[in-house]
């Protein structure tokens, strides 16, 4: 079992906490004068995205997480698995519903995503920050309604509902920020 000592801690280091792979986002040495040092760590659980706070007595060892990231292209879903391909090697990987998570709301095919693998198996799919998707359904906008900031719901071709300005019509291609799930502009 590979381990890291607290003196190897740095941002981005992947470790196991509570059985889950986590990425260190903050590492601070605290020392009350001349005595024992402690490492106060913030780490993001790569499965759930939740941030954990942990303290370690310095020189403690922590299990390393075998985590890799690669760029992959989304191909298709067979309903149970979502299939991705490494563009260089054409190697394919199947991610289950848990790994795909919220990415499913924004991908329809051919998007370049980041696949995080844990022990060689897909853990998380991160969609591109911005995607372009067509509006499948939305109520017609009221002509002449220019009220600032007014929105209406629109269903995208992936089935995801977003809030859009009143002037958006069915068939329009929209640019969406996948991190916030918000409409950015017409593409």
């Amino acid at each position: 079992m590979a381990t890291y000592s607290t003196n190897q801690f740095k941002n981005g280091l992947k470790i196991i906490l509570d059985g889950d792979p986590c990425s260190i986002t903050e590492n601070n040495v605290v020392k009350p004068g001349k005595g024992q040092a402690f490492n106060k760590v913030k780490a993001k659980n790569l499965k759930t995205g939740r941030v954990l706070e942990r303290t370690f007595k310095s020189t403690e060892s922590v299990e390393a997480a075998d985590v890799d990231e690669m760029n992959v292209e989304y191909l298709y879903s067979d309903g149970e698995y979502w299939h991705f391909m490494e563009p260089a090697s054409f190697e394919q990987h199947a991610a289950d519903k848990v790994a795909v998570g919220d990415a499913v709301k924004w991908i329809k095919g051919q998007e370049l995503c980041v696949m995080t693998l844990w022990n060689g198996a897909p853990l998380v799919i991160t969609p591109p920050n911005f995607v372009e998707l067509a509006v499948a359904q939305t109520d017609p906008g009221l002509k002449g309604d220019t009220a600032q900031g007014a929105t209406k719901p629109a269903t995208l071709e992936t089935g995801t509902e977003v809030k859009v300005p009143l002037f958006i019509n069915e068939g329009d291609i929209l640019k969406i920020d996948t991190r916030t799930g918000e409409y950015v502009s017409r593409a």
Partner: protein
Amino acid sequence: MSKGQWRSKASNKVILERALMLKNIRAFFDGKDVLEVETPLLSQFATTDPHLESLQSCFREQDCYLNTSPEYAMKRLLADSQQAIYQICKAFRDDELGVNHNPEFTMLEWYQPGYDDQQLMAELAELVTVLFGEANKEPVFITKSYQQVFEDSIGFNPHEVSAAQCYSLSLEKNIEIPQGLSADDDVNDWLDWLLTQKVLPSLASDCFTFIFDYPVAQCALAKIGANEQQVAVAKRFELFFGEMELANGFYELTDAEEQLSRFQLDNNVRIESGAAPKAIDENFIAALEHGLPECAGVAVGLDRLLMVKTACTHIEQVLIFPWQNS
């Protein structure tokens, strides 16, 4: 490398404040006839302190070490000259990096023959007042014993508590327990943790606090004496602003034999924890054998003092080139 990495991290205002602080410190000691000295940053001996790691270098294939503080060398000089001395220098410590730590930092250290810890605390307060004093707004100092700050914030006497009691108390009071700290550990590791987690956050956030009379096991290079309850304590003190440590001082141990056995104990602790023992600085022990005058000494972290002065929250903000872009 990100763009702008070559630029100073400290603002012009902070750079000027540092220059002013150094000037004022030198004027302060000049006015008191304390002599400025320089001792080597590079030494043939590392510190034995189990909680400090010296950075190692190499000269003509011989291992040498950057000083973690100028203490041993200054005391050697003191044993020789018997005169009050101060030094402003860089100190280096491995594995110390964070909001309040940079592997290289600036230290002010001085020694006053004939002083005890209480007298030196008063002189440090005087210096801080000179550096911080503005018209109508003098800095406020609170002085409490180590025992009192624990009793005030957690409600136990640190000189009587055991590791097992610290452990059960932490569970009971829902205090976080760091991974790797157990009921079998040295009680002083627990006291260090509880000091960080509970005691220091309870100190007044806008004042300077002196904590004095430390547990005997945390004596480092301080004399052992008795407190008001006639319990043995280390004549050591620390200065904090809010919860940030600024200075550490001792009523200095002058007994060469006792010092040697403390160094040997340090090395035993190192070996037990799997760390390498360090050669004991024989020049320092020889100086104590010759005779160190009764004295008190203190080391002040000037970068942190500057953080307080300029209201910076990260040590990087007061360093022109912190470690990441050094």
